[in-house]
Structure formats: structure tokens, C-alpha cells
């Protein structure tokens, strides 16, 4: 944000004559708008990509018509359709919570974007507790999911909400522990500091170091579970719970859940990129932010690849994976990282 203010001061004549409040507020607004644009744009691309990826993995073609080339405008058309649809609220639903839930879910994903280091100076706010902030704010979504499940007054939605709560709480723990293995050698929770610690050659990336290599997979699986993707998609398991917590949602409210899911997918991939894949570092022929988005999108692709390959776990098996597999390994990794740091 400081960078944005600097640019504005330099480029826009008379900017420094504005009142001090405006001078601070305008860059904030601009950054927020940029983030919002990103949050809206990335899911659009990701949803289209998911359709194409899934289609080709299943020997289909996927959307081919809207917009001409390979149906690139399909998501936009769907968005417009969802906007135009009737807004249905079940008669027995808790109206306030029902309306609030999609917003809470979306806001959780949106708020986390502010600490993503897209480039050397492309970061809305380089909080000194950035990692902690992401871990905290991305769990906010679960509140919205439970709200949606409860407010719908639908048993399937309630099941979905309860499952989501149990799942996200369980997977938060190994994920955060695994993130610690990065934080220990860097010595900072700031996202930019972590990226800077991986500068230099590719082999400085944390994924190429023994302890953090394993940690990467734990973070990847843990975050996969947090965003409810296959094989951990039990909260919305369509063959069991119809659609889980958003069974009763339609129209734009459903679109918000959908957008939030894909925004969250990108968010957790961006988190893993920052922590393990060197953030915006990359060969010089592409600018930093492009590298960052490319790496994150590559991880999103792996998430899709997994989704279209694997069956779904059962609730108790999900808990088993979290508490009996990921958690012990994460503890061992934290110990190892700590020992290495001491030496």
C-alpha cells in the first residue's frame, strides 16, 4: 500500500496536496478494488479451467460454444444466469443467517487476499503476522458454512455444515504445524520475509529442502481439506448429501459460495506458493506477479487433477488421516525443523 501511495504521489499531480486522510484512504480503496477484481477474476478462470480439465480427463470436450474459442465465456454466461435467477429462501429458514452466510464465506476468502505477496511490492499489506493472519482468516469460512447449514433448515445442509466444521478444525492443526517448519528457519511470520528467504537459486525454495519438502505435502493436503476439495469434499458430497451446506441456495447466493470455493482454492495455493515455492521468485523473463500467479495456478491444477481422479473419503477416515497421519508427521517435522535451527 505504501508503494501504491508512492506511485500515486509521483504520477498524479497534486496528490500530496490532498488531505492526509484521503492520501491514506485512496490507496486503500484502490488496493481493495484490485483485490476484489482478482477475487472475481481468478475464480472465473479457475471454474472454466476446471470444466475443461475435468472434461478432457473424462474424454469429453466441456464447454465449447459460449464466446467462441473453447467456450471461454461459459463462466460469465453462468454468472449472468445465476444473477438473473429467482432468489429463493425456504419458508422455514432463518432468513437473516441464510442471507448472511454466503457473504461471510466470501468475505473470509476475500480478506485473506490482502497479505498475499504477488510481487516485491505488490502486496496490499505486509503484516508482520501475515501467515498467522491467513490461517486465522481463512478459517472464518467455516462460520459461514455452519451458518448456511443451520439457517437452511434442511437436514442435509445441517449434515454438511457439521461435517465442514469438524473437518476444517481438524485439518487446521497439522497445516499450521507444517507451516511452522517454514517459519522457524525464516524467523518471521511476514509473508514477504518468507519469500525473501527463498531468493537466489531455485534450490533455495523450501520445497527443495528435506524437512520442508514433507511439510509442503502436509500443507497441501491440509489446505485441500480446508477448501473442501476431493478427496476431502465430504461437506458437499453430492452423492451423499445432495449438495451439503448449500443444498437450499440458488441464484446469486449460490454463486457466492461457488466463487468463494474457487477463490479459496487459489488462496491456499498462493499460500503454499509463498511458503514453499519461492513466491514471486522466478527466471527474469517474466515479472514476479506473473510467476506467482502461474505457480499458484499450477497448484490449483493439481487440486483439480486430484479431484477428477480420486473417490471421496468417509468422515471417520477423514479424521483418521488428519489426527493419526498428518498430525504426527507434522509434529516430527516441527521437531526436526527446530533441531536444524538450533544446529
Amino acid at each position, binding site marked *: 500500500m505504501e508503494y501504491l501511495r508512492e506511485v500515486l504521489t509521483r504520477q498524479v499531480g497534486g496528490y500530496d496536496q490532498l488531505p492526509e486522510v484521503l492520501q491514506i484512504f485512496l490507496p486503500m480503496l484502490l488496493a481493495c478494488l484490485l483485490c476484489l477484481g482478482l477475487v472475481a477474476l481468478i475464480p472465473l478462470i479457475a471454474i472454466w479451467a476446471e470444466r475443461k480439465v*475435468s472434461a478432457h*480427463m*473424462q*474424454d*469429453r470436450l466441456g464447454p465449447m460454444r459460449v464466446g467462441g474459442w473453447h467456450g471461454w465465456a461459459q463462466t460469465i454466461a453462468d454468472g449472468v444466469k445465476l444473477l438473473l435467477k429467482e432468489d429463493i429462501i425456504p419458508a422455514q429458514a432463518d432468513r437473516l443467517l441464510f442471507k448472511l452466510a454466503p457473504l461471510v464465506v466470501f468475505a473470509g476468502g476475500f480478506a485473506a487476499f490482502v497479505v498475499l505477496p504477488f510481487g516485491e511490492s505488490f502486496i496490499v499489506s505486509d503484516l508482520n503476522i501475515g501467515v498467522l493472519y491467513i490461517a486465522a482468516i481463512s478459517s472464518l469460512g467455516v462460520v459461514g458454512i455452519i451458518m448456511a447449514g443451520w439457517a437452511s433448515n434442511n*437436514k*442435509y445442509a445441517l*449434515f454438511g455444515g457439521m*461435517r465442514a466444521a469438524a473437518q476444517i478444525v481438524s485439518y487446521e492443526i497439522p497445516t499450521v504445524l507444517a507451516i511452522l517448519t517454514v517459519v522457524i528457519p525464516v524467523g518471521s511470520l511476514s509473508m514477504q520475509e518468507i519469500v525473501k528467504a527463498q531468493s537466489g537459486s531455485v534450490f533455495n525454495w523450501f520445497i527443495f529442502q528435506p524437512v520442508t519438502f514433507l511439510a509442503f505435502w502436509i500443507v497441501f493436503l491440509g489446505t485441500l481439506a480446508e477448501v473442501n476439495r*476431493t*478427496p476431502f*469434499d*465430504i461437506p458437499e*458430497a*453430492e*452423492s*451423499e*448429501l*445432495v449438495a451439503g451446506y448449500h443444498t437450499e441456495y440458488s441464484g446469486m447466493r449460490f454463486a457466492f459460495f461457488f466463487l468463494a470455493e474457487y477463490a479459496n482454492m487459489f488462496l491456499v495455493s498462493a499460500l503454499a506458493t509463498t511458503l514453499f515455492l519461492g513466491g514471486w521468485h522466478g527466471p527474469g523473463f517474466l515479472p514476479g506477479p506473473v510467476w506467482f500467479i502461474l505457480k499458484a495456478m499450477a497448484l490449483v491444477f493439481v487440486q483439480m487433477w486430484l479431484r*477428477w*481422479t*480420486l*473417490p*471421496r*473419503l*468417509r*468422515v*471417520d*477416515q477423514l479424521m483418521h488421516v488428519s489426527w493419526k497421519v498428518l498430525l504426527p508427521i507434522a509434529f516430527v517435522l516441527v521437531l526436526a525443523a527446530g533441531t536444524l535451527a538450533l544446529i
Partner: protein
Amino acid sequence: MQVEAYAGEEMVLNMGPQHPSTHGVLRLELETDGEIVRNVIPHIGYLHRCFEKHAEKVDYPGVIPFCDRMDYIASMNNSLGYALAVEKLMDLEVNERVKTLRVLMAELNRIASHLLSVGTYAMDIGSFTPFLHCFREREKILDLFEWLCGARLLYNYNWVGGVSHDIPDGFEAKTREFLGQFEPVIAELDKLLSYNKIFLERTANVGIISEEQALSHNVTGPNLRGSGIAWDLRREEPYCGYDTYDFEVPVGLGEYGPLGSCWDRYYVRVREMEQSLGLIRQALDRLPEGDVQEHIPRRVRPAKNEVYDRTETPRGELGYYVVSDGGLIPFRVKVKSPCFTVLSLLPAIARGGMVADIIAIIGSIDIVMGEIDR
């Protein structure tokens, strides 16, 4: 699992008739305690189409389209059972070509049916890709059928005293081509789904039908063989000359858990597809010359008699009890449905499982509501 210690309030969950994985319009009343299912009550009848009453109103050949619509996934096998029953009633023996063609089509349809069953099972467990891979292959079989008799799903192919069409030119080569490219698909399916650890975890320890349960509930077909009992009507009571073919009866082995689990039943189906491939090859190899329709009177009028005939459909033992009063219209056609008997076992095997297990069990017993409700 010691669930008693965590017992809480029970909630009645109404699963179906509109639900993605109740395979049609089955309604299940689940009494759930959290994720654990205390009791399951299946409610059927949403797809009742008065098959047996219809059969009392139309002449003998006219029943066949209705037979097709019972188990619409395996129409060839369903109409075959009826045609055989009426032929038995008329004391009619069809020639070798008809028999071979019937075997050929029945086995092709068995593959198509098992592909659908396996594919939807994958989808029930949450894996979408095998489902579409299976459908891609099934579509090729349906194309063959369309070429053969003009319809993709409800063929009206097996007639009383013959089949409706002889195979068109080039059908044999095309079928062989399909068989050749289908074999690797099974291997791929094994890798992608059958031996997937998550799939094994979800299915190999769930929905166990013991041998005694299976026998006492008259479970038949792949479900029975999944419990380790090698009973196949094609082998035990051969019809259509099945005794002259060389094939194995795959049974569940309990490799990855207790015998008779969902995975065993699933895997029996996969192995049966392989056996069907062999049967089709043999049928194509022999295919004798002959007329595809026996000369029977245009208006079938069997003598006063009654007959029970059973055949092995992809879902199990399908029995037709046909009573003739000497007229043009059957006096009574009663159907013994394989899916109905296995559905009666559902409460017994689903109790104490989880909600997700119910889905796994329903998918593994492979029911078609059209046949249960008729």
C-alpha cells in the same frame, strides 16, 4: 466401533425418492444418530407401472416391450427370460443361430449393464472420472445394438421363437474391434478405481453380506457370488446352450477385508465383464447358419399350461411365471425380481454403518428400481 457410548438423539433423515444416489426413486428412511445410521427402512413403489397387469391385457409378443422396461439397463436379458418362458410354454425349441445370437446379445448387454453399475458405483463413492469412462464404453455397445435392431435402450429384440433381426453385415468385425479395445479399459479401471486405496477403504469393510444371510434372503447374481457362493444359472441350469461355452464364475475372495463386502460385489462385476468378453468371442466364433425366426403362428396361442423359467440377468436370477389359459393373452405373468430380494436385505446390512456407507451399500447391490417396482 463402540458407538453405544456416544449415543445421542436420533434424527430421521429422508433419503430419496429424489436423491442423487438412490439409483432411481428409492426412498430410504434413515434413523440417524449423528453420522451413524441406526435403522434403514426402504420404501418402494415410486416407479410402479403395473407390469403384471399390463401383461394380462396384451398378447404374448406385446409383453416383450414391457419386459424391456422392467430392468431398462439390461433389456436384452429381461426379454430373453420372458421369451424363453413362453417358448417353454409352447414347447418350442429354437435353432442354434437364434440361441447363439441370444447369448451374444445377452452378454453384450451384461457388459453394458455392469459398466453402468460399476460407473455409477464409482460416482457414488465420489469418483467421477471412471463413471464417464465406463459410459464411453457403454455407448459403444449401445451403438452396436442400435445398428442391430434400431434401438439404443429398449430393444424388443428377443421374440417368442426367435430374434427380431439378424446381425447386419460387418457387425461381427465391429464387435471384435470393440472387444479388442475394451480389454485394456478394464485394466485401466482396475488401476484407476478398483485398487485405489481410498476406494478400498470406503468399500472393502462395508456392507458385509454373510453366506447365510445371502442364502436366507434369496440374494442372487453378482451379489450372491460376492459372498463367495459360486452359483450362476448359466452354469447350474444352462439355457440357450450356455453349457457348451467355456467360462468361469467369478466369486468374491475377500482379498481386502471380510468376504461379502461391497468391494467383493463390485469386483465380481468387473471380473464378470471379462468372462462376458470370452463368451462373446466364443459366440462370434461359432455363429452357425440358420433362420433367425422360427416359423410360429403369427398369433401366439400356447396351450393351457403354466411354466416358471429363470435366467441369469446382470442383476441376478430373474424368474417369469407365465400362466396360459389357452387364449391369445397371457392369463398371468408373475416376475421374480432379483433386485427386490436383495433390497430386502438392506436394513440388515446397513444398520450401524454411517450415512456414507448406505450410499456405498446401495451402489454395490446394484438395484434398478424399474425392476423392483415393475
